[in-house]
């Protein structure tokens, strides 16, 4: 779609009343031009989406107000929030970009600029960007098949079809694996065959270490050989149930990454990019150590970073990008390749503003079709929220607090744990909480509610363990999720302290937690196979029951740890 066609579609959408009410065609056109006018550059273009978490429809998504960097990561991209992030990237408060990239003034700006993402709107943007970039490849960093009710109920089938229609060329994996290794292989070998290639240099068979997928693929883009190396989420069998990928082993595999890059160069690649689900801190470290990568297009940690980080290493320099989550962004990397090497680049991370991008009719029809059998169930209003409900943030989110409150009430538990997932959409004050919204926070293949008796010592061990996954000073030892959300129990956290000493001052109802005393702890999303066999209730049923009985939900009181040693950290909202 060229610029003229785009404006024609925009005019039609305006006439049909699909654009921002009252905005006026001229204003919408001007805004769309300002955001999406990206002149072509160079001779190789790579479009990048990641971590859409199966959000086919436009949504709201509040970026974090707490995203701490510790040690060498303190104050560095991506560990900047709010005004510190705006300053760093030279964005104006209150602007469309500020709304897309930060949590600042979220409710007001959401009213002004509307929803983001949605595959029909993304499809329009992809077509527009591709129109003047012939041969551009569309790369999908994974976490595409999970995160919604329809994805769960169709085993990711809705997203498989949407990705094919969107024109994804190459993808890598994380949550896809939670449908089981057989399902992933089935899609790769049948529906994706000849259309979408799954690459992963770090997924091997557990017995002999054979490649499960091609480590990289070599494509010809306008006469330039481009290698795309896949890096799946290295800790899939740890962060998610191992039994779902019983015959596969993962890991960062830095040396094999180097060998793969060298092999791609030896095969004639003028450009080598890594499509990564490492998480941004791991990507930054990897970029500083592995030679010969032109760019790492990253995901997993859901960091929407407007500009790439440029990392020096013994082989030269590597760009590291991260393209956010929930379908909010499209990354566009244009490369000028001359004399067999990358001479120059341009990078844009384009927010997908649903009000500025008319829905692509074909994708819209697909979405309507895949949702049709489930619309009634998805549309049930469970309650109305009085406050903003969101998840993203290092320690807690209001939607997580709602889940914790429901777990404690329904299971009569004094303490509750909820996983520090980074996906999950946002609701504005006054909006209904539908079953669809609840599933956006909970739709996984191991949703079992658990009720355990744990000693104070065990509780501390759990908190320390997860905290180290978040704040280990070496990114290779991090897993890229957020801190487990905690209900009932108060604690302090010193993220820079050594492992085993970060969690302090634990109290329950004002009394210190006792190491040897037993406590009733509710939770969900257990990774052990025994928990699957125990067959707890799916967490969405429990929370739905809790919500239906209430009708309205007051803004949840966030149970947050007292933070130590992070005053002035730009990853913490002032």
């Amino acid at each position, binding site marked *: 779609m060229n610029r003229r066609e785009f404006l024609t579609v925009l005019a039609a959408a305006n006439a049909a009343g699909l654009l921002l009410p009252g905005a006026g065609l001229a204003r919408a056109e001007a805004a769309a031009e300002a955001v999406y006018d990206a002149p072509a550059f160079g001779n190789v273009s790579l479009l990048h989406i990641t971590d859409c978490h199966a959000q086919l429809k436009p949504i709201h998504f509040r970026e974090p107000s707490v995203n701490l960097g510790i040690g060498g990561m303190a104050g560095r991209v991506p560990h900047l929030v709010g005004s510190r992030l705006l300053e760093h990237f030279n964005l104006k408060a209150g602007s469309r970009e500020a709304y897309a990239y930060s949590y600042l003034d979220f409710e007001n700006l959401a009213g002004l600029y509307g929803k983001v993402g949605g595959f029909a709107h993304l499809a329009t943007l992809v077509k527009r960007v591709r129109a003047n970039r012939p041969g551009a490849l569309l790369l999908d960093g994974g976490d595409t098949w999970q995160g919604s009710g329809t994805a769960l109920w169709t085993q990711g089938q809705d997203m498989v079809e949407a990705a094919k229609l969107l024109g994804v060329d190459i993808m890598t994996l994380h949550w896809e694996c939670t449908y089981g290794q057989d399902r992933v292989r089935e899609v790769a070998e049948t529906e994706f065959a000849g259309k979408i290639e799954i690459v992963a240099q770090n997924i091997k068979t557990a017995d002999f270490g054979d490649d499960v997928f091609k480590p990289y693929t070599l494509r010809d883009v306008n006469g330039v050989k481009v290698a795309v190396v896949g890096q799946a989420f290295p800790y899939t*069998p740890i*962060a998610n149930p191992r039994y779902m990928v019983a015959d596969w082993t993962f*890991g960062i595999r830095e040396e094999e990454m180097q060998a793969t890059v060298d092999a791609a160069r030896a095969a004639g690649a003028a450009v080598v990019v890594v499509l990564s689900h490492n998480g941004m801190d791991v990507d930054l470290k990897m970029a500083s150590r592995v030679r010969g990568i032109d760019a790492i297009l990253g995901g997993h940690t859901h960091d929407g970073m407007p500009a790439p980080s440029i990392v020096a290493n013994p082989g030269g320099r590597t760009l590291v990008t991260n393209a956010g989550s929930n379908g909010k962004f499209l990354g566009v990397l244009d490369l000028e390749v001359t004399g067999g090497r990358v001479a120059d680049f341009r990078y844009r991370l384009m927010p997908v503003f649903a009000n500025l991008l008319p829905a692509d009719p074909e994708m819209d029809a697909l979405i309507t079709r895949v949702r049709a059998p489930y619309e009634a169930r998805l549309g049930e209003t469970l309650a109305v929220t009085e406050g903003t409900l969101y998840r993203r943030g290092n320690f807690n989110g209001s939607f997580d607090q709602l889940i914790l409150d429901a777990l404690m009430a329904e299971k009569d538990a004094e303490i509750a744990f909820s996983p*520090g997932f980074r996906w999950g959409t946002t609701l504005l004050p006054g909006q209904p909480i539908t079953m669809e919204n609840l599933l956006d926070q909970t739709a996984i293949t191991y949703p079992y509610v658990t009720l355990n008796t744990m000693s104070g010592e065990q509780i501390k061990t759990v908190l320390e363990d997860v905290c*180290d996954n978040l704040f280990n000073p070496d990114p290779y030892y991090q897993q890229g999720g957020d801190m487990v959300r905690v209900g009932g129990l108060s604690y302090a956290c010193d993220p820079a302290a050594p492992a085993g000493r970060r969690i302090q001052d634990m109290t329950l109802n004002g009394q210190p937690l006792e190491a040897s005393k037993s406590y009733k702890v509710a939770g969900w999303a257990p990774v052990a196979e025994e928990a699957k066999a125990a067959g707890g209730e799916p967490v969405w049923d429990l929370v739905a029951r809790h919500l239906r009985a209430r009708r309205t939900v007051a803004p949840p009181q966030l149970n947050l740890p007292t933070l130590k040693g992070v005053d002035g950290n730009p990853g913490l909202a002032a």
Partner: protein
Amino acid sequence: MTQAVMERRQVLTFLGALAAAGFVAPQAAFANWDKTAFDAKTMDDALKALGAGTPANSGDVQIVASDIAENGAVVPVQAVSRLPNTERIAILVEKNPNMLAAAFDMAPDTIPEVTARIKMGQTSNVTVLVKADGKFYAASKEIKVTLGGCGG
């Protein structure tokens, strides 16, 4: 078996069956079983029992293992020596109740590379100890053992 070519897995399963049936003698050299070293409860005692004293860290000794174990019960650890005349390779886990997890005596002209699947109860430094030309060398790496869950 009707297939002309057996796959590796089948070959190994077949060999395993033969071994179980007593047709293939395991190569474990029980004569060299180093009870004192395997029973050692501290790193110093284990090194002493192996005759290693305080080994020098060496870039010619390599430990290849995941930063975070996928399963603490079976952690693959590869030990590689680039030192000439490597006689012995041992793998020690600092925080296991018994430090010494494995020891391999290398016959002359053997490529000094071994892989073992070791058990780890908790996050620990893992050390590869190499004896070459009568001297001891080492390399260490922390392998994290985590409860899992809560990711992504």
